[in-house]
């Protein structure tokens, strides 16, 4: 099917102010959030978290809790069919800990009761005996050989390493006119969405499961629930209602409470919903967070301001789980190699465990921590060279059409230069000096920094590259000879461990690698439209943006479109809303579907006009305000 690439001279709705499709529900208080779900017979769940940052579990005695009147289920790790459900890249995480706890708040047991009050009392009656171990709270200390291992398999507490090698950084530094160094530590950041995570789960006869979750990735949740409970995917329904934003921290595989809620529902029996809502205290203390990093940059520059070499020795404190940190480091790897055109780069990131809340995502997905340090150093270098901050960057960034060694290809539609120039103009960078407005209460300052981020999950890169950082087993062997993904064949050849190329049978390699979005558009007899989307709008305006695209192509008003989204029972597929991918990828799906629908309408219209003795072709026709016109007429 051909995409219509004709540039429309004027848009009816794109670029115009269009009220959000969900605005009325939100201003009237009618919009539904998961923590507002109150079903008949619903039970309330609570999770018992570890009070220690690092301890071995000696025993768990739930008997007194089970006897408390009003308690309907108490579970521990043995009650979860696949306790390692959340482990995606690295197998370091159980839903309910059975042997060891590695951070304060690590879930150990859970209770479902007829009220929150009783559930809380029941937690107090669960007796867990711990052997407290020395806790590791500093990543540099964690890497010392004498420090206790948080996980037995990971020497020096290093979960993974990532690196970039372009040219020869050491030689490049030696050949530079000036060498600058800087060490930058970014801090831990909590996503703090205005509503805390909430889940309601209920099992149905025949083994089905329905879950309402504050998840921005219902499609991926479905795969994980299937993995957790061994349920075929057609028997699971995941519904994301309105959510208080995402901020990165809500995707599948980061909130144990979601799967624990379902495990409680399974224990209490068919037809009894269980709800768990995190407290704000829990959200701050033990939910996944944007983890902190240390970057030590060494940058070599020539007299004329051209950067000749960059070295970065980074330590990524991933807390108690490395999964998201590994993925973030992968993004940083791409960013460091695809922003500034530096001929010699040596970038190393060591991802290190500590006894703190595990790594999660926050908007920027790793790039914030990287640019925080790098861009400050860039300004210092520009100052030392007496160069304008903007000019120094323009001199060194990649340009459209440049070949990027790290990506093995040329850049297309890359406009970082125009972004920087327009930003500088918009903020009046040249007119204002850096410390712009100093009063006794405040200092207002102005500055500029480059940013770059790979939008999209990993379309085109393949899951091997993002999971290991390299493209071949030999390259991985060079980095980490003991990596669990490798096997040595009898003839000495290094190969991928059988099955490693398949991320997870339930997720499906093709879906995971391609990360597609799909949609279905239905037009009713009265010309109004229903748009079915797989992903969620959590306040970013996704459903409205898609309605605008559909409206533009179909010649209907956005208010003539109703959107259903974020429910895996809808006949559309997509993993979820993340990685800044929706406008581009789901938008394309919506545009294609709308064009297809429009073409069908025009074909029908040709027949209708013929019956009215007007001979037209589809090219003579246009759609406008729920009608089909012969172009240039009022017919």
């Amino acid at each position, binding site marked *: 099917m051909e995409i219509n690439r004709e540039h429309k001279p004027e848009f009816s709705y794109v670029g115009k102010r269009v009220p959000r499709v969900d605005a009325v529900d939100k201003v*009237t*208080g009618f919009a539904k959030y998961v*923590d507002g779900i109150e079903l008949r017979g619903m039970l309330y769940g609570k999770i018992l978290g570890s009070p220690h940052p690092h301890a071995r579990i000696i025993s768990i005695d739930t008997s007194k809790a089970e006897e408390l009147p009003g308690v309907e289920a108490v579970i521990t790790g043995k009650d979860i069919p696949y306790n390692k459900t959340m482990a995606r890249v690295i197998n370091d995480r159980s839903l309910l800990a059975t042997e060891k706890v590695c951070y304060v708040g690590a879930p150990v047991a859970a209770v479902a009761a007829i009220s929150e009050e009783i559930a809380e009392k029941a937690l107090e009656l669960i007796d867990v005996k711990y052997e407290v171990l020395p806790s590791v709270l500093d990543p540099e200390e964690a890497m010392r050989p004498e420090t206790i291992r948080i996980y037995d398999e990971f020497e020096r507490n290093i979960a993974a390493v990532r690196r970039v090698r372009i040219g020869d950084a050491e030689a490049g530094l030696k050949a530079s006119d000036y060498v600058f160094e800087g060490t930058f530590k970014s801090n831990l950041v909590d996503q703090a969405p*205005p*509503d805390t995570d909430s889940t309601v789960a209920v099992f149905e006869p025949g083994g089905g499961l329905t879950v309402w979750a504050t998840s921005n990735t219902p499609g991926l949740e479905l795969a994980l629930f299937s993995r957790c409970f061994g349920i075929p995917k057609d028997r699971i329904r995941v519904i994301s209602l309105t959510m208080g934003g995402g901020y990165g921290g809500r995707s599948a595989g980061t909130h144990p409470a979601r799967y624990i809620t379902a495990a409680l529902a399974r224990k209490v029996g068919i037809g009894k919903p269980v709800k768990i809502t995190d407290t*704000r205290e829990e959200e701050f203390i033990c939910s996944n967070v944007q983890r902190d990093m240390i970057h030590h940059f060494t940058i070599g520059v020539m007299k004329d301001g051209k950067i000749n070499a960059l070295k970065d020795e980074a330590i990524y404190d991933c807390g108690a789980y490395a999964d998201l940190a590994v993925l973030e480091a992968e993004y940083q790897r791409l960013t460091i190699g695809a922003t500034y055109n530096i001929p010699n780069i040596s970038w190393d990131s060591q991802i290190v465990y500590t006894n703190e809340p595990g790594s999660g995502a926050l908007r920027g997905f790793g790039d914030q921590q990287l640019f925080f340090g790098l861009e400050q150093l860039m300004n210092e270098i520009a100052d030392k060279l007496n160069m304008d901050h903007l000019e120094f960057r323009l001199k060194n960034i990649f340009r459209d059409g440049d070949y990027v060694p790290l990506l093995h290809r040329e850049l297309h539609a890359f406009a970082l230069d125009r972004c920087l120039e327009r930003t500088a103009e918009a903020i009046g960078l040249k007119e204002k000096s850096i410390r712009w407005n100093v009063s006794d209460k405040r200092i207002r300052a102005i500055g500029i920094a480059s940013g770059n981020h790979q939008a999209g999950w990993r379309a085109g890169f393949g899951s091997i590259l993002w999971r290991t950082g390299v493209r071949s087993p030999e390259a991985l062997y060079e980095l980490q000879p003991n990596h669990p993904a490798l096997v040595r064949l009898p003839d000495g050849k290094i190969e991928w461990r059988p099955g490693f190329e398949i991320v997870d049978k339930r997720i499906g390699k093709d879906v995971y690698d391609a990360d597609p979005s799909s949609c279905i558009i239905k037009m009713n007899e009265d010309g109004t439209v229903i748009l079915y989307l797989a992903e969620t709008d959590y306040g970013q305006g996704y459903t409205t943006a898609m309605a605008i695209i559909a409206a533009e192509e179909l010649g209907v008003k956005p208010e003539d479109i109703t959107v259903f989204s974020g429910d895996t029972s809808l006949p559309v597929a997509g993993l979820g809303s993340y990685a800044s991918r929706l406008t581009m990828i789901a938008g394309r799906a919506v545009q294609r579907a709308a064009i297809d629908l429009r073409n069908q309408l025009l074909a029908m219209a040709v027949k209708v006009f013929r019956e009215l003795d007007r001979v037209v072709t589809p090219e003579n026709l246009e759609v406008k305000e729920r009608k089909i016109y012969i172009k240039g007429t009022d017919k």
Partner: protein
Amino acid sequence: MAEQKLVTLKINSAPRPVYVKPNWTLYHVLKIELGLLGVKQGCDGIGECGHCTVLIDGKPVYSCLVLAIECEGKDITTIEGLAPTGKLDPVQAAFIEYDAVQCGRCVPAMVLAAKALLAKNPNPTEEEAKEAISGILCRCTGYYKFTDAIMSLKKGG
């Protein structure tokens, strides 16, 4: 366990008889007992976020810090009271026009706070508009959309 007492709360101009325990907050009664879900919880019910805001005798109040039993005889307005037939209140319409709606979590509280301000002061300054919403946390919008919406409703134009 404390006994439940039958009280009549005047909510959105209608009398609502409801059984309450003396230690229940107005938030709990509105949400759990009466199913008025427009009140939200963003902190642990400790008066930190403002999302549970309702109007009591026209004044914005954190419903998590007020006991339901103390509200007998008072006029309680929740977000549900503004558009009972679906016709939007001018404050709600202004919020939509100025896109002061993102995730929506703080919006009921913001709408009520704005309404309370304009009822008492139809011609606020921008500082007064900011002050009126200063007790409600928003994680999404950067706040300026709410003050823009409020200022668009000034009687003076």
